[in-house]
């Protein structure tokens, strides 16, 4: 019994430390990036001083597992900035309550749920991470499209995430299929398959492997590419011609929340002018009409009109096709 007395005493102490004096608490689950979370939460906390905002950050996949495991007794009040393809999972939608955040009505219909369960003012993009040092060493030419990666010279030099394990993997596969059409899309994926050194389980791993020179091309995320370039790695970020895959970062209200006022106030804040101003510093992809992602996009080397390079993605169809596409992918390329 000693064991439990000790551990329980320990935890009670921890709980004691954790229990805040504020009556009004808000638990927010998010998959946004650490740096932006810190900036947004600081501003949101200042805007709603009576509510203590507690944030749990997990990667998209792990957050999904956690939400589903907790479904019997949900702990979160708000899901904030989470991949919309995951949000549209019927198991998740079931946990959400429709709420139209103030200001969300300006968003085009493709960026919010018809039933009002989620809205997405921001998003992130996929990109190729090309290690320029290794590219030169191997005498390869800079790839600018998926077709360029078919060149046998790239054999064993390309990595991409497995769509069955990683949302980023599905982002890319879906972009290829939707922008080229199913038949041509599958043919394209088959053509690059022989050059794929690995299909990884993490979405950022291909970029991290490419930046340290293990491989030449990592099909990954623009965020990781930009962050790596900033750190000084010999890396180029390439947006493949013919359509860049992207994902919306959606937010929604948990039906089970015991603090609906606070939760709604927080969701309202994510559509406030202040929040949008911050998005312009951190996000390359903003879906609010008339707001350009000037600073961040310029840093990313994006054209002024980002819509020219993005694939034309139908997120509802992407969510519907998900299981079939993943199964077919596993059939064709599973290793």
């Amino acid at each position, binding site marked *: 019994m000693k064991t439990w007395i000790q551990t329980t005493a*320990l935890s009670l102490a921890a*709980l004691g430390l954790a229990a805040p004096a504020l009556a009004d608490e808000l638990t927010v689950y998010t998959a946004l990036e650490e740096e932006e979370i810190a900036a947004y939460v600081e501003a949101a906390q200042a805007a709603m001083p009576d509510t203590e905002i507690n944030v749990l950050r*997990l990667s998209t996949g792990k957050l999904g597992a956690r939400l589903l495991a907790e479904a019997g007794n949900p702990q979160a009040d708000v899901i904030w900035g989470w991949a919309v393809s995951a949000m549209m999972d019927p198991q998740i939608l079931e946990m959400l309550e429709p709420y139209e955040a103030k200001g969300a009505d300006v968003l085009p219909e493709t960026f919010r749920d018809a039933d009002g369960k989620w809205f997405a003012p921001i998003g992130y993009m996929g990109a190729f991470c090309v290690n320029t040092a290794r590219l030169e060493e191997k005498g390869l030419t800079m790839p600018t499209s998926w077709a360029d990666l078919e060149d046998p010279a790239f054999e064993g030099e390309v990595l991409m995430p497995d769509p069955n394990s990683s949302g980023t993997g599905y982002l890319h596969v879906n972009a290829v299929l939707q922008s080229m059409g199913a038949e041509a899309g599958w043919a394209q994926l088959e053509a690059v398959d022989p050059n794929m050194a690995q299909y990884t389980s993490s979405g950022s791993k291909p970029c991290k492997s490419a930046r340290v020179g293990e491989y030449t091309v990592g099909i990954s995320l623009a965020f990781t590419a930009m962050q790596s370039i900033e750190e000084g790695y010999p890396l180029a970020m390439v947006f493949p011609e013919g359509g860049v895959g992207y994902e919306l970062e959606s937010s929604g209200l948990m039906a089970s929340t015991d603090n609906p006022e606070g939760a709604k106030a927080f969701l309202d804040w994510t559509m406030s002018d202040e929040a949008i101003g911050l998005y312009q510093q951190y996000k390359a992809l903003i879906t609010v009409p008339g707001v350009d992602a000037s600073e961040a996009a310029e840093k990313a080397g994006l054209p002024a009109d980002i819509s020219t390079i993005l694939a034309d993605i139908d997120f509802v169809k992407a969510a519907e096709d998900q299981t079939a596409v993943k199964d077919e992918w596993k059939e064709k390329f599973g290793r």
Partner: protein
Amino acid sequence: MSASETIRRPSRHRTFDSDRLLTAACVGLPLLGLILFFAYPMLIVFLRSITVDEGYGMGNYVQVLGSSGFWRATRHSLAMGGATTLLSVFLGFIIAQGLYRCAFPGKWLIRAVIVLPLLAPSLVQALGLIFLLGRNGVISRALGVEIEIYGFWGLLIANTLYALPQAVMIIGAALVLLDARTYEAADVMGASPWRQFRDLTLPSARFGILNAGFVCFIITITDFGNAAVIGGDYSVLATEIYSQVVGQRNFNMGAVVGIMLLLPTVIAYAIERQAMKRQQAGQTTGQVAYRPVFAPLRDLGMAGLSLLICAAIVAVIGIVVYASFVTLWPYNMSLSFKHYDITLAGGYSSLWMTILISLGAAVGGTIAVFLLGLGLRRLPQALAQPVQILAAMPAAVPGMVLGLAYILTFNSTATPLYLLYGSAALIGIVNFYHYHTQGFLTVMTGFRQLPPALEEAAGSLGAGLGRTARDVVAPFIAPMLVSVFFFLFMRSMVTLSAVVFLTTPQLSVAAVTIMRLDDAGLTSQAAAFSTCVMAVVCGAVLAMKMILALMQRRRG
């Protein structure tokens, strides 16, 4: 004389009854823990695995068993488990033999280095192998040839590094207690050292070797971290679970694979038990500790081999520590402290809480496995057997499955256990049960060497179970308890897979901070934080060793 007899008789009667009570408590309390914190959550996982659209059924199993991916992963897992087991037990035996049966100076160094993989966060081992053996790694560049580390061989090395210290711990528990007099007798009878090794050491270490093999096998088939980082396309069962649960939010299918993983474990354990039946337990009383004398050929060889293995471990971990001071590995090798300026992901704040949790898990866990081992010796075989199987099972559950099972179980307001959800205690508890198998088997291996006659003698002298445990058993088993304590402490400091699902906004642990830094692309900062964790663990272990030594001196 007669007066003392009359006084003693009733008291002896009392001890008999209180002994039964104590035995029941010894087994009962740890068993209650095992049921609440392992069997019950796994039952819930099992229910999820048979949940289909409408009610229950075997549909999920049919679907999993019908997919070619599952069978490929199973083949890979079994091959990898087998290869890792052979290699780790072989190398582990060499090191344990060197430590306990040979005479050479500098054993403290080997002892210190061999545990390093236990206290290294999984990121460190993965990064170390890639920095060293990767296509753009130090060795590849030095040789001018690109080594292809990703896949079977890389995974084998990574898994062996992780399994090796655990093999040494368990095999060591069997070798440290061999009776010197047997070897003296063999010397007198003119048995060659090789013959002594074959006919004396190996048979008596068999229990430890089999237990170590069992542990190496199951921790390999359940490991996800190494497979994800260095396994390349070599899919294993743990990656299948990850892909189902995290990739596709398909809980029930993941649960199926999690339950299937228990099968090879139960089979392996049954085989092992069968193999053990032929060996009689324990030793004779009045053991004399073995003091190896220096034999140049044997000892220099063993020392050389052990040092070689240790050098490999130091290289893998050392290169990450070094890289954490490098400005931009591998492109700008100038040194800097900039990666130690960690502000994101909660900074250094999680470190102290993690130490508290780990101490709790180690103290509680060591006591629990000791009591369980002690009580099991006094239970009839028919009762002890099922408890033993249950106690040896937790390692067969991948950390991710255990973590999610804990959410399903303890986040339900249906039971008062809900109070634990979101608490540090639950993190300590999951850490202990995640590593229950290793602790339990180490203690059991030690108990195996304890002469039953010693306990019987203590009993017939009128010592109750409590007193026997304290004065006879505990001192004998102390070296194993110490290694179990440090093992649990070190693993709790760095283990991630289960804990990642149990942290809350207010309560995080060091391993989660490392993951978040790496997720944010700040791999060098993650390495720097890992270095701090390793330094803190080393410091804590040294401090505890000093306290132990002081206590022993005072007692002696």
